[in-house]
């Protein structure tokens, strides 16, 4: 079966696209799937840093597309997971160095060799976003439970539908269950009511994510982290498994809300 292309995108910056790409890639690879993560944020690369592979870069995405190297040379193998590969972004060029059809061509070549091709989209709705979305089979839109991020997610979902790459799947990142409970943060229900798309996962705010990102070790490799567990579940849902959503907090009352979400999100 040819590999599937998943684009992780958001519109707004800083909501966790790169962290999610690294973690979903690591989670899929840890299950023995052959995975390549492509950093499409040309000029502002950092997926390599989050994966801890920065010092191994020789060739990058633009070298590959412009034919200065073969795909084997641009693929960097992860140091912990032998099935996980990275194609880093070029740092010294910009988004216009690549076109949407370049990306489609590249991904079509990679489909034969990999089970999963994950594309880390840059923020914004311009060329970089269009490059990232052009080859996609599954578009995952990330948002945080805050009004500005949800507004941008809505715009991005509209653009994905317009490009006929939909329906988008929604990942709500950095949820603080305590704040939701006190009514100080949008609840997953509020976000879903507005965006009206299928939920693929909810990731709680977790300080371990920050330390693991700084260390270049995806948090999914940490068995105890709640965020890591959430990402592992999302990786399973990408593969079509039905996994119930984690209760974000063990306190009573919240669980009822989540079980309601499972019914709305699980169609």
């Amino acid at each position, binding site marked *: 079966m040819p590999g599937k292309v998943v684009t992780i995108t958001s519109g707004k910056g800083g909501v966790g696209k790169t962290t999610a790409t690294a973690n979903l890639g690591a989670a899929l690879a840890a299950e023995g799937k052959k995975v390549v993560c492509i950093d499409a944020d040309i000029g502002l690369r950092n997926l390599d840093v989050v994966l801890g592979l920065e010092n191994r870069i020789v060739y990058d995405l633009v070298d590959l597309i412009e034919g200065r190297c073969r795909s084997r040379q641009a693929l960097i193998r992860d140091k912990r997971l032998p099935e996980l590969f990275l194609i880093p972004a070029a740092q010294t060029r910009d988004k216009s160095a690549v076109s949407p059809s370049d990306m489609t061509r590249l991904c079509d070549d990679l489909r034969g060799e990999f089970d999963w091709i994950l594309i880390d989209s840059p923020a914004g709705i311009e060329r970089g976003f269009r490059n990232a979305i052009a080859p996609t089979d599954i578009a995952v839109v990330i948002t945080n439970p805050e009004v500005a991020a949800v507004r941008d997610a*809505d715009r991005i979902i509209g653009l994905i539908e317009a490009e006929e790459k939909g329906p988008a799947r929604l990942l709500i990142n950095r949820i603080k269950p305590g704040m939701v409970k006190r009514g100080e943060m949008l609840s997953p229900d509020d976000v879903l009511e507005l965006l009206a798309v299928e939920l693929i996962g909810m990731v709680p705010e977790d300080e371990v994510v920050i330390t693991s990102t700084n260390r270049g070790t995806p948090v999914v490799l940490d068995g105890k982290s709640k965020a890591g567990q959430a990402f592992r579940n999302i990786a399973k849902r990408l593969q079509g498994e039905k996994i119930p959503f984690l209760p974000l907090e063990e306190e009573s009352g919240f669980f009822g809300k989540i079980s309601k979400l499972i019914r709305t999100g699980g169609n």
Partner: protein
Amino acid sequence: MESNIELAVKPKVQIKGIGEGLLIILGEGNWQDLHDFLLEQIDQQAEFLRGARIALDVGNQVLKAVDLGQLRSQLLDREITLWAVISNSPTTEQTAQTLGMATRIEKVKPEHVEPPASGATHMGEQAILLHRTLRSGFSIHFPGHVVVIGDVNPGAEIIAGGNIIVWGRLRGMVHAGAEGNNNAIVCALDLMPTQLRIANQISMSPKERKKALPEIVRLLNGEVVAEPWNPK
């Protein structure tokens, strides 16, 4: 435009210089043929066109997002930016807007200005139906009525010459009677617009959230008034 040396009587593709770059006018015919022909023409003048900004007049063609999206990508490959699509078809205009392209280029296209409503018919008695969620960034300008089956999210806008009816949640910006029609109305199943305008009056939703119920908004003595929908 009677004579075009290369292409005889009915040119399939005309290229003109306008203030904002180039305007390409497509003739009538099968979209795929025109599309291929256009790319062929462009490739013949690749050097000249590299880096150009193009507005495309597609006439009556009804185009979907795949068509326009594909063409835009192909033009991008040739380092040409497609920034506007002009069309007589509301569907094509919508597609272009959803893809973030302009649908008007000022000055150059007098023949596309809507003819002034004749005295006999009420202005904008036509209606357009949108059966989908209107998301942030979506914008529609229509001289007649606009009916939406679905939600209008914050950041979306509807500007209508006539009435606006939303069978869903209205959270974005709407302007009914935009050409000065004081009798225009707006109604929605759940009315919480960012801003609501009728003719020249502007209003905002009250801060506190009421229970969602269908409401109808109209101008009463020059003020924007919302009332619960109360079918007798």
